[in-house]
């Protein structure tokens, strides 16, 4: 027996209101969770990046320190090399000057150069030639000059000349003593 003229509708648990609500909350929850996931991912990536940056910074710092040590060492090498080269050049000038100083009439048999002294041995025709042509310039260079002569055999004289340069301190002390 029928109680209605229309066909009964299928009743569903999901009414349009529930559908609307579910749609709204699904979208909201999706947005919330995706934002949270994004933040978590970013946080993780920043942490990783920070570790990477810190490592790289440490590496660079070590590298810079190493290079600075190398730069300093090269500078030291350069200073030392320049000093040695200058010393060699000065030495060459000193030897050149020494041999230029010796007049043609005097013949040297030995010359010994030390840092603060010079020893010359040789023969001279007479004392005057030695005194005027060699000892005079030597006196202007060295603080103390000592000479000794002995006959050479052929009428000439053998001489030994020792010359010393005093330290500047010693010289100034001597000057003070003389003044007093």
């Amino acid at each position, binding site marked *: 027996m029928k109680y209605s003229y229309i066909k009964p509708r299928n009743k569903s648990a999901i009414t349009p209101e*529930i559908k609307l*609500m579910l749609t709204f*909350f699904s979208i909201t929850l999706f947005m*919330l969770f995706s934002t949270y996931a994004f933040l978590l991912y970013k946080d993780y990536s920043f942490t990783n990046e920070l570790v990477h*940056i810190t490592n790289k910074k440490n590496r*660079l710092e070590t590298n810079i320190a190493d290079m600075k040590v190398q730069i300093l060492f*090269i500078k030291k*090498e350069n200073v030392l090399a320049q000093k040695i080269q200058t010393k060699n050049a000065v030495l060459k000038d000193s*030897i050149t000057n020494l041999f230029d100083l010796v007049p043609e009439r005097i013949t040297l048999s030995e010359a010994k150069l030390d840092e603060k002294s010079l020893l010359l041995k040789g023969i001279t025709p007479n004392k005057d030639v030695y005194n005027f042509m060699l000892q005079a310039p030597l006196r202007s260079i060295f603080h103390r000059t000592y000479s000794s002569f002995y006959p050479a055999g052929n009428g000439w004289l053998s001489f030994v000349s020792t010359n010393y340069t005093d330290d500047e301190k010693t010289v100034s002390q001597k000057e003070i003593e003389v003044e007093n």
Partner: protein
Amino acid sequence: MKINLSRQYIYLISFSAFLLIFVLLFAFLVLIPEGKEYRKSRVDAKTQIKELHKYQYFNDETEATLKELQKKHRHIIVAFDAIFNPNKFQKQHKNYFSSLEISKLERKTNEKEFAVYEVSAVSKISSPKGFYDFLDAINKSDWIIGIDFPIDFVRDSELIKSTFTMNVYCNAKDENSTKKVEK
């Protein structure tokens, strides 16, 4: 007035209220603190990147300086690193002398950075010019060598016999160099 709500509506309203509370709680308790953390991390990361760029720039600058110095003083660097070879030295400089004899290398000082080795040389020259040329050439040689006092010139018939000491400078870290030479 009586509001007649069906059971379904009550469930719906309750569920909506629950979800709303969940959304609010999640947003305020989780999302906003996490967002703040994210902003802080982003600022930190930017600062660190800036600092890294500074380091990188300084590193590049230092590297450029080092390379320039290495290029400019190449001869000196190589000379300090070189192992002294008496035979090679004699070969290179024998033209300045009629004869040249080099003694064994001996360590003179034990400094922190540079080692100094002493070599005695006995040579014969026909004129002082040979010695001058030798002094010029020594500054361009493969090693860092300083001629040291005393220098003795003695007449030996037509030649001049010269005796002098040479100081060979090299890097102190190169400990094996002498051993190699002394062998």
